[in-house]
């Protein structure tokens, strides 16, 4: 399949708490990328409130689209297709992007390309580095922890996923226990860099041949340690708890990723999703990949968190491959990525 054909894609993303639109050329060059973040709005609730997120998406959707088109300096005639996150995500939030995208596709008679949110996170890498196949992608975010093997473009095989909490979810919950604000990742990362990993929290390796993850036991262990200390009136170093928790998460993430990378003989490892902003994870992955001699790609911060440039980048591949949706497209909160495989 020819994935080199020139194309300009308008990408739309509303699966969680970011309203985003972007224009991307050839799946690799960002012409514009606009994100209206709701982090500040959800902070006071200690997490994303789906109804509140959906309300903000309706208010921001056309504003964000207008800005993306204007900044990209493109006309509608120049745009080859509209790519939109179909799922997974919060259903009420997904519906805004999906219905907005359908209205745009109808108004301008453009092909509508459905995109899997995780494929978007993976393809965020193509906006900075060309992808080398076969590759292994580690996706870590508030909603996901997955290892995906890709033999070529648009070929997705989930070889491992979380059986309970996503890594990012564990970060948020532990952060709350340590009285850190939402989202928890940056706060834990900062504290961890000042502490020592001296507390031996559990690491869930699961079955020896499994690439799956589990973080709920670890999360409970951290909460217990903090709770017990409080009851006994002991003060424990938050820095050390953060460092120990982070170490435990990273041990499992890095070890499983490296083991899979060797077994599948990959040419590249990709890390993506909100948690890939974590400095601890970046450093650990860099040194592990260096030791194993496998090139590592982690997109810059603003492409790690949810954005629409990544949806347009994945949409470029979907467009060239022939993925199409009609005006009856619906959001799907538990969409499987394999459906988008060649």
């Amino acid at each position: 399949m020819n994935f080199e054909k020139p194309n300009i894609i308008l990408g739309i993303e509303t699966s969680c708490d970011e309203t985003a639109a972007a224009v991307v050329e050839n799946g690799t060059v960002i012409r514009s990328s606009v994100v209206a973040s709701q982090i500040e709005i959800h902070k006071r609730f200690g997490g994303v409130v789906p109804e509140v997120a959906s309300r903000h998406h309706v208010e921001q959707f056309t504003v964000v689209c207008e800005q993306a088109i204007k900044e990209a300096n493109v006309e509608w005639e120049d745009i080859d297709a509209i790519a939109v996150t179909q799922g997974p995500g919060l259903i009420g939030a997904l519906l805004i992007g999906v219905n907005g995208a359908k209205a745009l596709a109808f108004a301008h008679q453009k092909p509508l390309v459905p995109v899997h949110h995780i494929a978007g996170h993976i393809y965020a890498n193509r906006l900075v580095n060309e992808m080398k196949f076969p590759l292994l992608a580690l996706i870590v975010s508030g909603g996901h922890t997955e290892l995906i093997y890709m033999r070529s473009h648009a070929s997705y095989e989930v070889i491992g996923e979380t059986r309970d909490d996503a890594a990012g979810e564990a970060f948020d919950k532990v952060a709350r226990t340590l009285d850190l604000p939402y989202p928890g990742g940056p706060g834990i990362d900062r504290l961890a860099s000042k502490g020592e990993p001296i507390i031996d929290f559990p690491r869930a390796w699961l079955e020896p041949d499994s690439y799956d993850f589990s973080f709920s036991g670890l999360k409970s262990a951290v909460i217990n340690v903090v709770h017990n200390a409080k009851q006994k009136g002991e003060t424990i170093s938050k820095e050390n708890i953060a460092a120990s928790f982070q170490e435990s998460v990273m041990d499992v993430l890095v070890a499983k990723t490296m083991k899979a990378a060797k077994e599948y003989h990959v040419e590249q490892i990709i890390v993506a999703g909100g948690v890939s902003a974590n400095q601890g994870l970046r450093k650990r992955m860099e040194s592990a990949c260096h030791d194993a001699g496998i090139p590592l790609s982690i997109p810059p911060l603003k492409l790690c968190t949810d954005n629409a440039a990544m949806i347009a980048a994945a949409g470029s591949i979907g467009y060239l491959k022939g993925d199409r949706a009609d005006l009856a497209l619906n959001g799907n909160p538990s969409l499987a990525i394999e459906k988008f495989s060649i």
Partner: protein
Amino acid sequence: MNILAIDSSNLVMGVAVSTETKVLGEIITNVKKNHSIRLMPAIEQIIRDVDLTLDQIDRIAVAIGPGSYTGVRIGVTIAKTLAWTANKEIVGVSSLEALAQNGIHFNGLIVPFFDARRGQVYTGLYQSKDGKVECVQEDRLTMMKDWLAELKKCQESILFLSNDFDKHEALIQEILPNSVIGEAVYNNPRPSEIAKLAFTREPSKDVHHVVPSYLRLAEAESKWLEKQVNKK
């Protein structure tokens, strides 16, 4: 002027195309099906059926609620996006005001309502006068019991319009035994009425500012506000 009207704010889904003098076409369903799947195809179909194209639509009218949060958002998102990207005027219309229009030939007060669970309703008070149905008490979310007690003070006869009588008819009969319960044909909000109302309204100055009328805060927001008050 050609107006495209869109309503997915409650169980009834409706789209219509009208001129000042004619309803060119109208699609209404009153079944529990997914608006997200069906609304955009219905819009495409109604425009095609009346032999127009989107280019020939001048104004878009949309029901902005109250109603199902998700339903309202689907209609408003599509209406806003079409209006913005295809450069159309846009007018938002209350979903209750749209339903109240069905009582235009009733001599008295008109009370449209949508069930809002746990004994609550979205409702308002309207009056038919000089060939127009106008709002006399603004749309609100209230307990049906309290609302009926308030309506009891009115001296005029009252027509209730709703698809949710199964949940509220007994109480209406009990408190206001002389009121009129709408017949089935009058209980579906009609998108052609939304178009009719939109002809006489000033379009929104800024399409980006068109927002749903939920008449209720998100639960997390009201809880949060409550906490702030208790803190003081």
